[in-house]
């Protein structure tokens, strides 16, 4: 194993272990998402959802629940001196970026593993759309994770930390949300899944992820310099 890769594995394992022991982010994210579904149930006054309404409710909830996790992803590093440790360690600093993005990706995956079935249980008469939704969940997770890591690492060192993350992140994820909600509107169609534009939107999500992965990888080093 190269030094970078072992550092990556160590950092990721550290993050996951911390989360398992403290349960600081994930339970809050899940609770938030489920409660939001209930708010939507009364806000929209619907007991079942289909089409663009279903897609909108699902993705908005996932996005906002994700922001809770994104807000916290670097807080422990700041409070416990993790940033200084990374700066002192003889490793490539981008490792912190990839490990944090991977941790966030895993958090989002766990969140969805719980919340999407709950969503289906609450609102969907027909569950057949969930399988084709999978690549979009993964793609959107990657985008959220990469951008969230980048934004969170910027915001955590500022005075208005919790305020800045949603402020910066929401406009940036609009293209991603356009893609995933557009495809979900078809997949959740009341008459059964409609695959129109499936490939094109998947391409958009992939392009989006690729661009911000490159940007994040290129600029992250400068966020740790001090």
């Amino acid at each position: 194993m190269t030094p970078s890769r072992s550092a990556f594995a160590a950092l990721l394992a550290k993050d996951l272990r911390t989360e398992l022991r403290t349960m600081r982010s994930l339970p809050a994210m899940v609770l938030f998402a489920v409660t939001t579904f209930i708010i939507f149930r009364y806000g929209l006054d619907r007991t079942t959802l289909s089409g663009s309404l279903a897609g909108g409710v699902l993705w908005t909830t996932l996005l906002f629940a994700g922001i809770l996790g994104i807000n916290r992803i670097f807080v422990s590093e700041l409070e416990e001196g993790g940033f200084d440790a990374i700066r002192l360690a003889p490793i490539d600093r981008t490792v912190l970026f990839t490990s944090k993005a991977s941790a966030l990706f895993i958090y989002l995956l766990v969140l969805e593993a719980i919340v999407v079935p709950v969503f289906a249980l609450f609102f969907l008469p027909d569950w057949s759309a969930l399988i084709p939704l999978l690549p979009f969940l993964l793609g959107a997770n990657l985008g959220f994770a990469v951008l969230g890591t980048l934004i969170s690492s910027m915001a955590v060192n500022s005075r208005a930390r919790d305020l800045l993350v949603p402020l910066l992140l929401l406009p940036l994820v609009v293209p991603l949300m356009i893609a995933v909600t557009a495809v979900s509107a078809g997949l959740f169609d009341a008459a059964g899944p409609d695959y129109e534009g499936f490939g094109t939107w998947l391409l958009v999500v992939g392009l989006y992820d690729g661009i911000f992965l490159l940007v994040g990888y290129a600029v992250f080093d400068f966020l740790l310099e001090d």
Partner: protein
Amino acid sequence: MTGRGLKTLSIATVLFLMAGFALVFLWVPMDADQGFKQKIFYLHVPLAIVALLGFIAGGIEGYRHLRSGDRRHDANSYVFIHISVVFGVAVLVTGAIWAKASWGYWWVWDEPTLVSFLIVFLLYCTYYPFRYAIEDRDRQARYASVFAITAGAFVPLNFMAVRMAESVIHPRVFATSEGGLPDSMLLTFLVCFVGMGLLWITLVKTEMVGKKVSGQVSRLRRTLHDDGTGGGSVGGRIAPSVESN
């Protein structure tokens, strides 16, 4: 960057803009569909294009700042984005006026370019609170550059996504883009575009000169107060200052 050339630049700006508007109101033929109200096109579209180019230029300057560590590039990036945000307000206002005149509503969601512009504008509005929230000046400059690069990469991506989401075919006047414009309209548009670009450059330059002067003043004041009383600084800790060479 000094105040030299600012006068010439200002005169050129005024001449180009006046020529442009003279062409708009006196020479270019009325649009067959929209008539007189189409003339806001010559104000709205150049403003929008210049603002977007300014955002992207701000990202490039941010990149150069990270590469070289030269604070002047950060100052450039800040001023580029700042002036482009000001232009952005004008774009949204003229866009709303045009929408009201054409379609009867102040805001239309099925006009992808306008919606994309709003998203980009909102993103760049967060540049200020973000910058202000970071106290350390070096870190502020670095983080702002990272923001400028990220947002610069986001601009084209966002336009693509919003346009793709527009499945409804909307009767857009300039759907064929510049290639579909008659020569007279194209010429007028280009004159207005150059004028607007010059206006942007003039404003950027003015802002830079202002920053430099306020930087010099605060330095002088610091020197004056350096007799043990402790100096106050002028010129704001928020915006990047430009060191004179």
